[in-house]
């Protein structure tokens, strides 16, 4: 594998997903395909030549020249407000990737998989869950998805559909739960993480993605519960 140079891309589709997040499909001629969990770099160029670059996880996987990402707006950010508020089909940008060979699920690995997402950390994990759902048989998957409220959940409808189709989904709400929700509201603690995840004896492969504080807490809880730290893969974003 050798990383491509920048590839010219166009926005093919832009769909609001939450009040502050959007799904974008990019048409990238020459895209070599990607594995579930990989990311890409996006470069925007202003009319005067000024450029800004950021990394985003990829929600899609497999062959083809269409790449899906989902972006949550960082209000003081530079690239995410453009992608969430401004970009429309036909707009030009550049893409480099796919990047990263570590935070990747191998569909041939029969180990049980535990996905733990905090907020927009769902994106690379959704790519894995989608890849698994597209297979007729494979590793058993569980997803623990922590969001502020149901309305803040990127890919809420699709996660519900995947749940109905057999993915073992546990939702966690940190600010407000839907009416009638029987569980606790608030940050995940070790006990709730243990209840919603595979037991250490099942020797799962765990992928955790989200803001740094969320990933630290979830990864610490998994290790404290007895999971092998070498089988807990993490991807963090945002400030500490």
């Amino acid at each position: 594998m050798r990383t491509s140079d920048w590839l010219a891309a166009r926005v093919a589709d832009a769909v609001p997903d939450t009040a502050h997040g959007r799904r974008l499909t990019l048409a990238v001629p020459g895209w070599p395909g990607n594995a579930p969990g990989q990311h890409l770099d996006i470069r925007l160029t202003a009319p005067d030549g000024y450029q800004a670059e950021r990394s985003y996880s990829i929600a899609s996987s497999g062959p083809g020249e269409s790449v899906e990402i989902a972006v949550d707006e960082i209000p003081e950010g530079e690239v995410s407000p453009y992608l969430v508020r401004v970009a429309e089909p036909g707009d030009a940008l550049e893409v480099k990737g796919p990047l990263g060979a570590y935070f990747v699920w191998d569909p041939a690995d029969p180990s049980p998989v535990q996905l733990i997402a905090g907020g927009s950390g769902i994106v690379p994990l959704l790519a894995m869950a989608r890849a698994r759902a597209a297979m007729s048989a494979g590793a058993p998957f569980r997803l623990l998805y922590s969001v502020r409220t149901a309305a803040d959940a990127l890919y809420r409808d699709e996660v519900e559909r995947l749940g109905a189709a057999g993915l073992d989904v546990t939702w966690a709400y940190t600010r407000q739960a839907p009416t009638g929700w029987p569980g606790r509201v608030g940050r995940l603690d070790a006990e709730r993480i243990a209840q919603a995840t595979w037991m250490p004896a099942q020797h799962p492969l765990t992928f955790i993605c989200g803001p740094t504080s969320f990933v630290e807490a979830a990864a610490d809880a998994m290790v404290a519960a007895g999971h092998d730290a070498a089988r807990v893969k993490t991807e963090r974003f945002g400030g500490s």
Partner: protein
Amino acid sequence: MAEFTRGFGGRRRESDPRLPPGQYLTADFPVLSAGPTPRIAESEWSFSIRTESGAVTSWSWSEFLALPAEDVHTDIHCVTRWSKLDTTWRGVSIDTLFAGIDTSYEFAMAHSYGGYTTNVPMADLRGGKAWVAYAFDGKPLDPEHGGPARLLVPHLYFWKSAKWVRGLSMQKHDDPGFWEQNGYNLHGDPWTEERYW
């Protein structure tokens, strides 16, 4: 020059000659790690250098703190595109650690608690270019940022500044470490954007 992106004007952050290409300034100190944060007690910590002869030189935490330390003021650049200017560290220069080490190999592999590795040429470690740092901003280094101690090689992308470092082993060739086997560049110069394979 690429086709411009309709509607993108950029936020016109002040350009700074200390900012390498493709990087943006942050006041935060983001974290990039591949797994759970190892928590290493200072009483269990040691740092060692292994040479091609098999000789191992080790320092315990207290022995390490007794070595001559330096205050380092530097900018740091992460491959995930954030740069942080004017950071302050305290640690022991690699030159100090290698003062009594007999090696002719030109490359080193940094090993970390938690199993991670990264390869660095000695030319990027010697000559006042690199340290094993145990304090950031006047305080002990947080585990999330690599404490008790991390390698500090600020002129390379920050994944080379291995967190939770426990030693260097000399190697004849520039064999790739963990990140370098997983998509990152063998060397990692931010000024020439040596980001990926």
